Structure formats: C-alpha cells, structure tokens
C-alpha cells in the first residue's frame, strides 16, 4: 500500500542525520546505545541516522555461531563484537558505508519484516544510482548483485525502536569476508559497488545517496539544527 501515487503524502518523521566519517566500532556502538536510550525514553524523541565507516571489525549477531568466524579474528588480528542485531557473522571496514537508523518503527514494531524490506529497497536504489543492478532474494535478507552479496541488513528492536541497520560495500577489501562464513551462508560470494561498476566511488558520495534513499523509503526528513 505504501508509496501509491494516489495516497496522501505521508507525514515525514523528522530525523537527525549524523555524518560521522570513520569511527571505531566500539565508539559507534556507545553512541548508538546513547541515542537508542534517548529515543526509547520518549515517543516524541527525534530519531537519528548514524552514517559512518568502521575500522576493520568482525561482528556476530546475538544468535550467531562464533565458529562462523573460522578463527579469522585471531589470525588477522581483527577484533570481534557480539551485538544486538539479528543475523550471523559479518565484516565491517574502511570502504564500506554503514547506516544505523535509530527510529521508531511504525505500528509499534509490529511489522519488522516490512521495515527490513524498506532498508533493502533503499540499498537497491543506491546501487542502482551507482550503475549497479541489485536485488533482494526471496527467503534471504540482504541485497545481491550478479556476482555476490553487496549490501547487508541486520537490525535490533527495543521497545519499538529499531537500531543497527545496513552496510553497503563500496570499495572495501572483500577478502575479509572470504575467510569467514558470512551471514550463515558458507561459501557465499561478496562483492562491492566498485567491483561491479568498475567505477571509482567515494564512500562519502555513496553515503549521501544512501541517506536520501533511506529517508525516502523510511519516510523520514532531515531535521535541520535539531538537538
């Protein structure tokens, strides 16, 4: 039903966008926790979208098996964080744009899948703007182009507020994925916008597109000078 041309223009929720650049994973998580606490505390609180790159890190969803990392963290000297999102093991690092929308889910959190699909649509739209055709897969969560998974989704929901979010491979090293079992899918190929498009892309530039696409899909508008 959403996005129908005949529908009344939806009321856009205001959201603060924080363009943070490169942030160590732990710092980003602390910031996310703080924002989450604030948004959870008040139904009228303005949500935020944290847009950033991480230093190299492996993360595990709460229910993920540590074995999926196959000892890569120890071998490569990369830290591991177990975090409160869904999904399996993944890698984040320089060259990958990450966005954490910390926003109240519509309908008091009763349509988690709908929210996840919106995030996927935003990723697909950004890929398309970079000249890369990508799509979701039935039965899977995330976004794939012809040669592999290019964007990942993993969220947490606390008291109706979503946190964590999406990552999109722009020009990051892909071999860090190959040494683990990413997203509980052994042997899954992973690719990036740069690899698919053959074009040089900046993480910041792609990040701006992703912000626009997320705002459109999640029906958000950037609050100027909020907070």
């Amino acid at each position, binding site marked *: 039903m959403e996005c129908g041309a005949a529908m009344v223009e939806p009321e856009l929720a205001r959201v603060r966008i924080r363009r943070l650049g490169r942030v*160590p*994973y*732990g*710092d980003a*998580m*602390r910031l996310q*926790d703080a924002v989450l606490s604030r948004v959870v505390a008040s139904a009228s609180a303005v949500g935020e979208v944290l847009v950033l790159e991480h230093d190299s890190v492996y993360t*595990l*969803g*709460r*229910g993920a*098996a*540590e*074995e*999926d990392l*196959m*000892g890569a*963290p*120890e*071998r*490569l*000297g*990369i*830290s*591991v*964080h*177990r*975090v*409160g*999102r*869904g*999904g399996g093991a993944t890698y984040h690092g320089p060259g990958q744009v990450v966005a954490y929308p910390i926003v109240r889910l519509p309908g008091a*959190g*009763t*349509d*988690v*899948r*709908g*929210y*996840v699909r919106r995030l996927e649509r935003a990723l697909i739209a950004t890929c398309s703007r970079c000249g890369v055709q990508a799509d979701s897969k039935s039965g899977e*969560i*995330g976004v794939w182009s012809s*040669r*592999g998974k290019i964007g990942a*989704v*993993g*969220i*947490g*929901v*606390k*008291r109706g507020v*979503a946190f964590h979010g999406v990552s999109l491979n722009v020009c990051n090293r892909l*071999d860090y994925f*190959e*040494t683990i*079992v990413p997203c*509980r899918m*052994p*042997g899954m*190929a992973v690719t990036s916008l740069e690899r698919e498009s053959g074009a040089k892309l900046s993480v910041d530039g792609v990040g701006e597109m992703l912000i626009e696409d997320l705002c459109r899909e999640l029906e958000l508008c950037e609050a100027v000078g909020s907070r």
Partner: protein
Amino acid sequence: MTIEIRMPKLSDQMEEGTVIRWIVSAGQTVAQGDPIAEVETDKANVEIEAEQAGVVDEIVVQEGGAAAVGAVIARLSEGEGRAPATSDAEEKPPDAPKKASREPSEEGATRPDAEPSAVEPEPEPRVSEPASRSASRGAPLASPVARDLAEARGVDMSTLKGSGPGGRIVKRDVEEAAGGAERAASPAADEGVKPAEPTTSTPSRSAEGEGMSRMRRTIAARMEKAKREIPHFYVRSEIDLSEAMRLYEVIRAEEVVPGLTVTHILLRALARTLPRHPRINALWVDDSIQLVDDINIGIAVALDDGLLVPVIKRAQTLSLRELVAQARALTERARANKPQADDLVGASISVSNIGMLDVDELTPIINAPQAAILGVGAVRERPVVRDGAVAIGRTAMFTLACDHRVVNGIEAGRFFEELKRVLESPISLVLEAE
C-alpha cells in the same frame, strides 16, 4: 495464575522465531514492560517485554530454540506468587537486579576497550536457573558479590555457613560450595520447573556446539550445504603413474627440488592441464558460471579433527621448484593451524589426496563455489596392460567430482583424458612453465 509468554508475531508473514537470549531467568521477578528475551526473525533481533508483572516460572524454549508464532516460550506466575529462586526478590526492589546487572554488561558486550578479539561472555547472572529451589525465609547474611555469585552458580545460600564477619556468607564460601553443588544439584523440587541447560552461560548457542570445535562446525555447515545443493557427478579413472613415480624418484635422488612429493607432481600436472579446460577451473556464483583465469589450487590439509584448504595461487605461472616451495609453506602453516590471511581464499579447484593411506579411492564433496574437486587414492602396484601384455605398473585411482551446473560429462572426460596423458608421460612436467 499463570501468564503464558508467547512467540510474538512481528510481521504478517512471520511463522516462527528463534529465542536468541533470555534476559531473565526462572525465579526472577519482572515488572510490566521489563525486557525478558530477545527473539530473532528476518535478521531482526527484537526485544520482547513482559506484558504483566510476575515471577518467571519456566523457560519453555531455551536459547537457540525456534518456536512457531503463538507458541508458549515461557510461563510467569502472576504477582509475587511463586517463591522466587533466591532470596534476592524479597530483599531488593523488583527492578534492582535487572538494572544493576543487565545494563552494564549489555554495554560491555560492545565495548572496544575490552579484550580486542574476545567475544565477551553474556552477563553471568542470567545463568541462574537455580539448582535448588528452596525458598529461603529469613535470608542469610551475605555480601552482594556472594549473592550474585550464588545466583550465577546456582548455589542455595541457605545451605551455606558463612565464614565472614558475624557468619556472613562471602564470595569464598560460595566458590567452595559451587563445585559440589553443581555436581549434586537435584534439578527440580517444584513442579513444572526444568533445570537450565548447564551451558547457557556461553555466548554460543547452547549444548549443540559443545565438544565440537569451531572448525568442525564450519566443515559440517559447508559440506552439508554443498552436498545438498550441488548436483555432483563423478568421473573416475585409474591412471598409470609408473613414469611419474620414476621421475619423482630421480628428482628425489638428485635432490634438485627440495621437499618434492608425489602430490607436487600431481599439482604440477593440474597446473599444466587446467588452462585448456576452463569449465573445470570455474566457480558457480549466484546462478552463473564464472571462469577463473588463474589456476588456484586448494590442497586439503588434514588437522586433528579438522581440515584446512590452503590455496596455491597462479599455479600455471610457477616452476616446479616454486610450486613445491609454495605448497610446502602453505601446508606447514596450515598444519600449525596458522594460515595467513589470504592462504585460504581464492581457490578455483581443490585436490584431496589421501594417497599416504592404504585407501584405493576417494570420492570427494565439492568445496563451493568451486566447480570441481579431485580425489586421489594410494599409488599401488597393480596389473596394467602395455602393448598387449600384462605388466606391473604403479597406479592410482583418480575421482573428479564435478558440479553439473558448470561442467558437462564430456568436458570432465576430456580434462581427465589430458590429465592422464600428462601423468603417464610426465617429462613435460619438469620443463619450466610454458
């Protein structure tokens, strides 16, 4: 009255969810709106809350367990009803244990300044399905640390004699009791209360992984998927290695290529043969065939209860000596379980040679996304026919497993024919790369 906590329906299409984490444990008092568990569906990790206040009576679905939407995952008894597990609930305001113990550990789980590469354990207190459920009227004097520890280790403090000032129970008392108590724990005094999984304190998912190495788990997952999804077919041939063995023995005797093994000669033959058989040196990725220009050969290396497949890169460009050096270095690092970052990636085909054992043949499972894997048995003296007469040759059984989505039988056959020809007259193998 019993309150049933059910798997929530988190979206229209949701049919089941997985309980990822219990934030509360049996015996604990919860207030309305308190988070009690995390449930996963669609890569979303959703915290669910108590709709009414009560005491957790029973955890029905353990961590890692799946439940259909609407299925009961836990039971609460209303109000302060059932006697809680430990004396905590009587002494502290209902919120205190959660606020005090949950939140900091939650934060801890994402702090970078903790151990750099360690996955932090879950907060200890939530282990606390108590081993003994006798409610303690007139709770004994105990330090807060001892109390937390007792809860975590399932020690009934009413059975302890404190060694602290004024008979106060201190940490040491609980520690001493814990070992024995854990062994002697009688699971259930009260009706309907199940003992907790003893392993719920580990961050990984419960007992299923216990006693299994992470490598074993990974092998299990990969092989299961590969065998299930890849339409394997097999091409098998006995190859006469008499000449190749002679070549090997000469090179060994002359010591011109240090560390040479028969496997290296085989790898060399593959490196020479594969460039003319692109479909055998290919990947199946996202429903399409990817040909790989370089010959990157994964070699299966056995470990104690494990397997690593380090990859010889660009084998077609290597001289025999270089190939041997690379293969040895890779194998050594793998055996020491210390592969370097890119040792294990990028293979376009794999070889599993169990020729060192007294085994005739090996029919391997493809290592996805590769399209083929070669299994090799022991080299033995067997009768061979040469020029119309039976002679004794040294042969081995070669089995090529192929992904039929990528390779057709005729292609596999042609590749095999050439591999056989090269190995049966192996002089080209000692010449430098073409």
